[in-house]
Every structure is written in C-alpha cells, then in structure tokens.
C-alpha cells in the first residue's frame, strides 16, 4: 500500500502498486503510520518526498468502499473517509521537516489535496492531470478542502477553474496557475528533481519544530479546521 524508505536525511513515502491508490481505511492507516515513523526519526536536515508508482498519484477517496455497504450507508462511509483523511493532512502540515510531493501521475480530489498538502509540488509533464472532480460527481467540498485550496492557490480565477469548473490541469498549466512549483519530463526526472530540492533544503539544517510552526502559521484557517494549534516560541539558535 505504501512503503517508507530512508536514504541519508531523506524519507521516501511511496504509494505502491500500479493502481489508483484510492484513499481508504487501510491506506490511511498505512500512511499515518509511515508519517508517525518519519516524525519520530526527524532530525535537523530531514526532508520528506512523497511519490507513487504507476499512472496515478492518487485518484482520491475510495468511493467504491464507501458504496460497498449499500446506498443508505454511502453518506456515512464518505464522511468517515473524510474524517480519516483529516489527520493525514494535519500530520503533513505539522511534520517537522520540508515536504515535497513528486506527482508522477493523476491526482484527483483527495489525491489533489494530498499533493498540495506538501510544501513543494513537482509534477510530471505528460497526460497526468490535477483534477478536483467533486463538481462533476455532484459533491460539494468539505471545509478543510476549501480552506486548503484558498491557502495554496492564491489566484481567484485559478481557484474558480479548479473548484467551480472542475478543470483538468496538466503540469505546465498548473505551474502557470501557481499550483505546482515545476514540471518535469518523466516520473524519474520528477523524483530526481525532488531529491535535488530536498537535498538543498536539507542542507539548511533547519530546526524541524520551528519549520513546522512557521508552516502552520502560514495556513491558519486550515489549521483551525484541523484542530492544529501552534506555539509562538521554540528554542532559538541565536
């Protein structure tokens, strides 16, 4: 489901298998446990790279699981999935190190959210798209999705195109829209660029707690909705 690997200061979280990496109860547990491990092993100079195998980064929540117990349970199961996703977003926002999403395939709905919950988003420039599919499916957005979009995508027209037009955005356009940091030719070169960036950031040897507090302060609305408080003072290196 997902693997965690450490190479020097860099942690690699990989969504494994050539499938849609649908976010359901099992994958959530797997990711949470990996992030907990990353957090416990963090040192100044650590960095996280999240990537995936195959054609998909993640195609969103496991709606098949949500539908599996019959239509009367769908809403409850969907709610449950959205509740399970919150701690993962919270963990990423409070991770004491820089985080980089190497988006090597399609990222839709919660998969798109997962990607932009990282500090840096690098993306493969081919037919892969970022896509908030909710409007097409007939679902509205949970409050923390809306808050994250507002916080990460500053241009109102870009936000409108993503959320109110359900636009399928390829890497180069995503860069122009300010959603993605850079576009790369292949999955390998995307990961390579992520590693290069991670090494640069790692070399700054930042205090992870300070990093996390600054990051949280930059996204006050999302943090509020996720129940993340932040502290003003950590040990300064003066």
């Amino acid at each position, binding site marked *: 489901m997902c693997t965690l690997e450490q190479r020097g200061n860099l942690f690699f979280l990989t969504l494994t298998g050539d499938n849609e990496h649908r976010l359901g109860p099992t994958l959530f547990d797997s990711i949470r446990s990996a992030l907990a491990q990353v957090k416990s092993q963090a040192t100044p100079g650590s960095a996280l790279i999240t990537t995936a195998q195959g054609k998909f980064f993640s195609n969103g929540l496991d709606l098949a699981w949500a539908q599996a117990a019959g239509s009367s349970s769908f809403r409850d199961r969907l709610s449950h999935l959205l509740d399970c996703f919150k701690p993962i977003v919270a963990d990423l926002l409070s991770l004491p190190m820089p985080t980089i999403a190497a988006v090597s395939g399609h990222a839709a709905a919660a998969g798109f959210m997962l990607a932009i919950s990282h500090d840096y988003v690098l993306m493969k420039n081919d037919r892969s798209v970022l896509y908030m599919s*909710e409007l*097409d499916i007939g679902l509205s*957005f949970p409050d923390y999705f809306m808050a994250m979009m507002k916080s990460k995508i500053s241009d*109102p027209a870009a936000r409108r195109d993503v959320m109110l037009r359900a636009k399928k955005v390829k890497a180069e356009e995503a860069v122009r829209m300010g959603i993605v940091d850079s576009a790369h030719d292949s999955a390998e070169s995307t990961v390579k660029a992520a590693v290069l960036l991670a090494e640069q950031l790692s070399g700054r040897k930042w205090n992870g707690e300070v990093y996390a507090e600054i990051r949280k302060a930059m996204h006050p609305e999302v943090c509020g909705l996720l129940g993340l408080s932040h502290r003003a003072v950590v040990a300064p290196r003066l």
Partner: protein
Amino acid sequence: MCSLEKRGNIFILTLTGPGEHRLNPTLLDAISAALSRVRAESSMSSALITTAEGKFFSNGYDLAWASASGVFLDRSKLMSSKLRSLVADLISLPMPTIAAISGHCSAAAAIIALSHDYVLMRNDRGFIYMPELDIGIKIPDWWFVALIRSKIGAPRSQRELMLRAAKLTAHDALNWGIIDSAHNSTEETVRAAIRFGDELVGRKWDGHVYAQIRMRMLADVFDKIGCDESVGEVSHTRSRL
C-alpha cells in the same frame, strides 16, 4: 428596463435601452425579478449571461436620483440594500454566470459584473472604472472590497482599480487579471459568452452543488453582504465591539 431571453439552456438577461442603465430601485427590482424567473424556469443544467444594450453596461448607482433634496442617505441606503440583495442572489444562483460587458461599467455595476463567475468584455470601447476616489465617495469596504478581493487576487490589480481609479479597457483588465477574455464587439462578446455557456451547460452539473461550492468560495463576501457602512448599515457584530 431589462429583458430575459432563453436560448436552449442559456438565459440572457439584458439591460435594455440606450441610456446609462443607472442602478435605481426600479432597475434593481427588475433585475431581481428576472433572476427569480431564471430560478423558476431553470429545470436542468443552465447558465446565465448578463449583458446590456448601448454604450453603457451600467454607470452605477443613480446618484442623480439620490441627490434630490434631503433624501440622499435614505435613497443611497435603499439602492445599497437592493444591490446587496441582488448580488446575494447572483452568488447563490444555481448555475454558472457569465457577464458579457458591453460598454462602460462603473462602480456598483462593476460589482455586479464581478459577481458573475466569468467576465467577458468587448475590447473596442468601454472602461471598467471604480470612480469613487475621483468623486470623493468612500468605497464600501465591508462588502465591495470583500467582493473585489475575492475575485481579484493580485494586490497591484486591486490597487489599480480602487486606489488609482484607473479606467481599464478590456485589454488592461485582461492584463490585470480582472476579466477572463476580451472580444471585438458586443455581438462577439455575447456570442463567445453563449458558446462558453453551452460548454458549461454540457458538463451537466447539479446547480445546487454548483451554488454551494460558489457560496463557500465567496464566504467572505456573504459574511459582509448584510451591511454597508458607507450608508450607515452597520453590522451587529461590529457594533458589539
């Protein structure tokens, strides 16, 4: 004052006549009535296009009417209240909305245009213009500014519009990220709006979900649309401070 036409699933609301389409209570009521009809008559995936005849899209509030002796504040309050109701209507409309700016578009009319999801404009004549600074009237910051900031992200673009009172051609507005596209004439602008409207209608979105998403995106505006401090309509929350 305004007409409502339906072409397939596209509603076209037109401010009629050759004049300035000043937003006095009568015109504001007519537009609101048209929007009620749009809601009532839309059965499935629809879209709204708002445009106007003549040289002006609209030149804003009817200040001449408001300036009759002794009634300025009351009349301003009335127009503000009706405008806010209209904008709330537009923002909660269960379908995509497209403004096809057909000429000069000032002040409160610019607010109406910006209340649409997409803004197209003719590039051969007409300005978008917030004249408040030039005529010495404060821009209602509680809700005009909230709307402008929700739709125009770049601080410099906001400054051009509000703090420089720039008269923006379609070309300027496009560069500043204020409109979505510019077209050669009113007819071309409306045609492009219809083509685009058809495309959006073809997505077969659930209008209520669409409206919900839009309202959440514009939550800041909704929070503030109940009041307008420039005509003395004060928020009860604020007055508790």
